[in-house]
């Protein structure tokens, strides 16, 4: 069974540039999460989807971050414009349903110069 797929794995951009990350969750998983993980810290939830609905986006910096999950499958997370402090690993995760075991993707390591 394929796991959570993310791309790109690495991204280096200059500040003020836009960037987008893509996630394909495990087939059949209704719940999808985007997390941000800074070096030496635990993940921080940015947004959670139940199917195509964003049910928890309280931690998403909405002035520059946006996300979508069209058709309730793949999801994209966008940052525009990127700031130096956005450098982190962005993790996508999915679960069959809320409170079920969560599977994480390999992450996208973003470096903003």
């Amino acid at each position, binding site marked *: 069974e394929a796991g959570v797929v993310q791309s790109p794995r690495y991204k280096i951009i200059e500040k003020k540039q836009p960037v987008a990350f893509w996630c394909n969750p495990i087939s059949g998983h209704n719940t999808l999460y985007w997390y941000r993980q800074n070096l030496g810290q*635990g*993940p921080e*939830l940015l947004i959670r989807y139940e199917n195509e609905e964003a049910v*928890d986006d309280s931690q998403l910096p909405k002035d520059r971050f946006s996300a979508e999950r069209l058709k309730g499958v793949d999801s994209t997370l966008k940052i525009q414009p990127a700031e130096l402090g956005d450098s982190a690993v962005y993790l996508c995760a999915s679960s069959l349903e809320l*409170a079920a075991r*969560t*599977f994480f*993707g*390999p992450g996208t390591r973003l470096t903003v110069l």
Partner: protein
Amino acid sequence: ELKVEQNPLFLSMQEGKNYTIYCNYSTTSDRLYWYRQDPGKSLESLFVLLSNGAVKQEGRLMASLDTKARLSTLHITAAVHDLSATYFCAVDKASNYQLIWGAGTKLIIKP
């Protein structure tokens, strides 16, 4: 506010030794999770603990939960080098299912 504290944050130990990582959380929680993360890799789910007194074991790792003390432990028995990684605990509440994570324990096991 739900907070999660792990200790130690860094642990260097010899192969063959036993040790315990502790995870304290500040308010009532419904589920406690342990994850492993290798350098540059993603998070791997190890255990989900749902009730007081729950104990789960896999290989040389054993996790337990004491909801009254708001404490979970991850015990490593006869450590081997392959267990070197960062271990995270996380808790959530049924009311919002938002996972709150500890800072992680970086474990280095020397041959």
